[in-house]
């Protein structure tokens, strides 16, 4: 697989990305904000959207995957960079306490450890992941996912009484 880094004017390129996503997929929201294309999609469309980003639009780099526990649903952010000033932020929301979402390791192989980390910290199960082990926590006899809001820590403080 050869690679080409994108060239040309940033705004035109962002328009192209946005059009590319709009033409191929049903998006819930989409906008351009500065150098950022922000799109919100259904979780079922995730793999096809990222495949479009990689194969059709040539966005080469998956920067990170952030999971946010919204108490009852999980908001998952995929941050993509085209390495030349353009940013694409794909957001999706998975309902329920035990989220399952498709893996993107075959589209972006770097997602391997990002997804392992998300599984470790939030219990998000990535369907089809080749090696879904915990990344940081103990492999055995540890049944918690520490970044869930329901995981209480002993030193939790509130700042209600401060000025």
């Amino acid at each position: 697989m050869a690679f080409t880094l994108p060239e040309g004017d940033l705004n035109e390129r962002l328009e192209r990305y946005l059009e590319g996503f709009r033409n191929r997929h049903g998006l819930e929201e989409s906008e351009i904000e500065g150098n950022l294309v922000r799109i919100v999609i259904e979780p079922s469309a995730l793999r096809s959207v990222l495949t479009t980003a990689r194969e059709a639009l040539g966005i080469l780099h998956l920067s990170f995957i952030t999971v946010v526990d919204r108490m009852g649903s999980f908001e998952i952010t995929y941050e993509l960079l085209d390495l030349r000033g353009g940013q694409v932020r794909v957001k999706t929301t998975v309902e329920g306490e035990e989220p399952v979402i498709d893996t993107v390791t075959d589209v972006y192989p770097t997602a391997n450890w990002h997804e392992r980390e998300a599984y470790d910290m939030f219990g998000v199960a990535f369907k089809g992941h080749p090696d879904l082990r915990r990344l940081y926590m103990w492999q055995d006899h540890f049944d918690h996912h520490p970044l869930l809001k329901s995981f209480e820590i002993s030193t939790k403080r509130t700042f209600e009484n401060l000025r």
Partner: protein
Amino acid sequence: MLSEERRTEQVSLGSRASARLAGSDIRDEFGLETLDMNMGPQHPAMHGLLRLILELDGETVVRCDPVMGYLHRSKEKISENRMYPAVVPITDRIDYMNNIAMEYGYCLAVEKLLDVEITPRADAIRALMNEFGRIMSHIPSVGFLMLELGAFTPILYAFRERERIQSIFEAVTGARMMFHYIRIGGVKADLPEGMPEKMWEYIEGLESRFDNDFVDLIEGNEIFRARTRGVGKMTPEKALEMGLTGVPLRCTGVPFDVRKHYPYGWYKNLDFDVVTDAAGDVEGSYRCRIGEVRQSIRMIKQILENLPEGEVMADMGRRLRPREGDGIGRVESARGEYAVHVVSDGSDTPYRVHYRTPCTVNMQLLQEIVPGHYLPDIMPIMGLIDPVSGAWDK
């Protein structure tokens, strides 16, 4: 909690050891079997606490499985339970070789949510200290690479420079390692009187010492070349696929630098080159690091030549309540693209902070390129990635 059927099979020992535990025969047709070796977590060349489960065929590595988490301090959970300004010292402890970039990324993210304007002088001082931080991290990296190849002397020469830069940091920030200098809205304090002149003097001395003592000791060495050339060889396609950033990506010839392509702060005003090397092996990464130190010296000189005057802290309220939404601060740390994703719900504390540390991502490389190399080649490959224990474990 995950129910049992949703949890994928957890293989903690690796397929071979599980096969042996299950009682199956793992010998080949000559009746030989490979050797399992557990390298680390307490190992002098593991850059902290990393455990590699290796399968060796003689001296050749057949399988390499990194196990992390021995220095996991749950920075993300701690950050969720602190007020915004109090997270800055937490970020200091992530990458303890290059702390200043860690603070910078977090402050950028929060400032995006707060919509504050940073004064030019604060921006310039941030970039100045950031470049000092990069030198402070790159020179010992090369020293560690040499230490892992068996030469003990360069690391002490490297630490001589690091100590001196630490003294500069001590004069500016008050601390030698955990600075807590870049704050949300600016920097903690202005440079002390006479500091720019001292920095200039130091940088001039560094240039000559760097070339004469340090690079000369390493570069012409035949054994260094034999040990690094062609070791850890990878193609740019592979590097992009693995999501590498920083020196491991640039040493394959892909010019990507957050400072250049996603400019932040004072870097818009600076003139510098993105150092790349076509080799894509350990020697290429060494040349990249040396080149980047030279670029940092160039940038520091540019900043010192026209340092803007003015305040160093933006005017903000005492209690920070960023707007709802998510802010991303992305900086080029000494190890690659470091991004902080702050999700705010409008209260005093961040709702969620995600640190994208370059080390974690770059270390996926170990699984991919170590098999096929000799056992002693693991150490130069670690030197290519140059991970820091605190950064990969968070």
